[in-house]
């Protein structure tokens, strides 16, 4: 029997193996030393990050690139609190990660012990669910439940806080064979009657419009989405979180809707008479002023989370279920009804397509270029050329994120990795590390602003340690561009604390870490510089000095209706 007696740390690692975990992103500390002692001769690979926040972002990059649950690890107190941003970020974008944190010994808890923090309490609202484990024997159940909750239903982050004595204690390890969470309900199949009614509404609509959200990526439903789009032959938009769910080169793909969405995307939303919302949550950045959003449309809303239905916009026909299961059923019904109904609205549908194509032609998303300076849009167009819709692109939040989303094509899901809901600066670089670890076969661009990059610099060491061939492209305009854009447009151009001077020499910085880098500021050297970066077998840091005063358009001012876009910057009046 005694051979069966294992330490909590060893049990934890065995449970992770059972969950098919191959990589942990983490940083050790006082109370997790027992865990790291068990890791010393264990098969699981540990990636030493340089800040715990990046451990959570890297786990997310791994999860977003593959759909598998990412794992990060931190010690008690400051280690755990440093994870919080990454957890909330995962919560907002529904990314499956499991965070393991150390906690002080159960006897010390509540005494303000060294490096003690109430991790369980602090992360209550930062996670989908969290666990506090004080007994070694309780570890396996908590760990497997954590993975199940993180990856099922609407995915999200789950934290397991483990006391030092639970790591150290010995217990008979009986592998868990079942999970019982009586109060945790996952709705996957969708209601058949509702699905049939939805199919009828789709054929009856004159101006149907498909609004695909991040759920289509998270639910691995790209093929299904594509089949639906083609069966119905409706125009489709993909939100920021869904770019790539429908290939950008697909003839029915319009663009991204919302605050910085394309003219055609938003006009389509506004004039549609039926909005087919799939795995999306009617976020304020998509809808603009809610009262004026899609005023002529009936709404079909498919989502796995019942709480998203009618949260922001009342759904005329809700379907609670997994897009991957529901869409094929919808297609089945559509095909069954097609002989009787397909031709009914054919003329109106043709007119609708004509209109949408006109909008698209009227104000296409085309990268502006200049002969004298590198426009940021030009940079994105060049990256698009090198990617061909196939590279993984990660970003932070802000202007570079919006230009990337507008101008870089994604022809597969899980290529476009960015911090959408939370909008965390410093996300893109660590996310690229996680993504490149998970997909060594892929070309990975990490497009970051000069602001966000300076929040991620410590992680250059991690990139070098593992010789990750990430192409870090800094869109350097010397400003916190998006904040400046708002100050210009809505705060009378009173630019306050948005100038980022003192940016380091990229070539020297990269060299200090032991890899190559350069700065490019001449427009005729841009292509070659990017090609050099891509050709480099290892990592590359390319600092691109773009025109500093460019702003992102189209733009729906906050609180505006999405059909009232500002299409371009106000032009100076000639004297």
């Amino acid at each position: 029997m005694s051979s069966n007696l294992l330490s909590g740390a060893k049990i934890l690692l065995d449970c992770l193996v059972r969950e098919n975990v191959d990589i942990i992103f983490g940083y050790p500390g006082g109370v997790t030393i027992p865990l790291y002692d068990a890791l010393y001769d264990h098969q699981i690979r540990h990636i030493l990050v340089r800040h715990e926040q990046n451990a959570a972002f890297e786990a997310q990059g791994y999860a977003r690139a593959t759909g598998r649950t990412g794992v990060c690890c931190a010690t008690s107190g400051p280690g755990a609190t440093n994870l919080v941003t990454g957890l909330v970020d995962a919560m907002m974008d529904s990314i499956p990660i499991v965070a393991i944190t150390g906690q002080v010994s159960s006897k010390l808890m509540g005494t303000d012990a060294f490096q003690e923090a109430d991790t369980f309490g602090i992360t209550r609202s930062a996670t989908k669910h969290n666990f506090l484990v004080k007994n070694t024997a309780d570890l396996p159940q908590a760990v497997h439940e954590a993975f199940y909750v993180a990856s099922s239903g609407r995915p999200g982050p789950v934290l397991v806080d483990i006391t030092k004595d639970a790591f150290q204690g010995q217990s008979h390890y009986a592998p868990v064979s079942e999970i019982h969470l009586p109060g945790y309900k996952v709705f996957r199949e969708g209601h058949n009657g509702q699905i049939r009614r939805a199919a009828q509404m789709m054929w009856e609509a004159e101006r149907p419009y498909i609004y695909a959200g991040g759920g289509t990526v998270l639910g691995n439903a790209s093929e299904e989405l594509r089949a639906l789009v083609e069966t119905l032959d409706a125009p489709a938009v993909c939100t920021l979180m869904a770019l790539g769910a429908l290939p950008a080169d697909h003839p029915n793909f319009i663009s991204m809707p919302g605050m910085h969405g394309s003219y055609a995307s938003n006009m389509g939303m506004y004039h549609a008479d039926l909005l087919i919302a799939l795995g999306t949550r009617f976020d304020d950045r998509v809808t603009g002023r809610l009262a004026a959003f899609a005023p002529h449309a009936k709404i079909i809303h498919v989502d796995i989370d019942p709480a998203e239905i009618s949260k922001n916009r009342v759904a005329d026909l809700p379907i609670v279920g997994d897009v991957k299961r529901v869409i094929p059923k919808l297609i089945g019904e559509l095909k069954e009804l097609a002989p009787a109904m397909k031709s009914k609205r054919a003329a109106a549908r043709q007119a609708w397509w004509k209109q949408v194509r006109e909008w698209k032609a009227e104000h296409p998303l085309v990268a502006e270029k200049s002969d004298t300076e590198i426009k940021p849009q030009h940079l994105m167009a060049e990256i698009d050329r090198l990617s061909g819709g196939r590279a993984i692109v990660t970003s932070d939040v802000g202007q570079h994120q919006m230009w990337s989303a507008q101008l870089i094509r994604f022809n597969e899901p899980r290529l476009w990795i960015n911090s959408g809901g939370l909008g965390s600066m410093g996300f893109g670089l660590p996310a690229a590390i996680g993504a490149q670890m998970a997909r060594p076969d892929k070309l990975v661009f990490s497009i970051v602003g000069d602001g966000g990059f300076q929040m991620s610099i410590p992680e250059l060491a991690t990139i070098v340690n593992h010789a990750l061939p990430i192409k870090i492209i800094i869109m350097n305009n010397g400003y916190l561009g998006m904040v400046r854009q708002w100050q210009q447009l809505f705060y009378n151009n009173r630019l306050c604390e948005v100038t980022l001077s003192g940016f380091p020499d990229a070539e020297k910085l990269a060299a200090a870490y032991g890899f190559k880098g350069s700065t490019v500021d001449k427009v005729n050297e841009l292509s070659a510089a990017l090609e050099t970066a891509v050709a480099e077998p290892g990592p590359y840091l390319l600092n691109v000095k773009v025109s500093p005063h460019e702003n992102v358009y189209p733009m729906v001012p906050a609180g505006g209706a999405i059909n009232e876009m500002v299409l371009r910057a106000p032009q100076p009046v000639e004297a």
Partner: protein
Amino acid sequence: MQQVISLLLENKPGALMRVTGLLSQRGYNIESLTVGRTIDPTLSRMTITVDVDPNVRPQVIKQMNKLINVLQATDVTGGPAVNRELVLVRIRVTQQNRTSVLKEAEIFQARVVDSTTEGFALEATGDSEKLDEFIDVLTTYGDIEVTRSGIVSMPLDNRKLRLSPPLPLGAAEETLELQQTE
């Protein structure tokens, strides 16, 4: 507007924090909250009264149901349910108004739980409106101190409790394999 919610939840550490945290996080104001064990010691029954816009009521219930420790959240506002509250009142009385106070207590079917020369402690139960009136009446006799329990509710319709069955560990892995395929 007041919404009364009846919750059946697992009696686990942190469960109460999840409920109250969710309410404050979503901006719902708690008017009262009571919690106690059920006949199954692993489960608690909670009654929460919140002040929300009527349109938001279904959203509150959905958010509650998302909590993994919550087995069932039921909106019992205006529905078939018995809602009761208990109040304990301490009142100072004089020799002159002693009998009048007792008379009032009798009208409201309140019990005397403590009696001294200085005054009484009274206990009354009923719906909240009745207790409001009782308190109003007693204040006309002088200063009082009040402790209210908050509403406890018992839904009266037969709502089926739907629980998720145990899942073999492989079931979660099956989903994982699905996700791994390119």
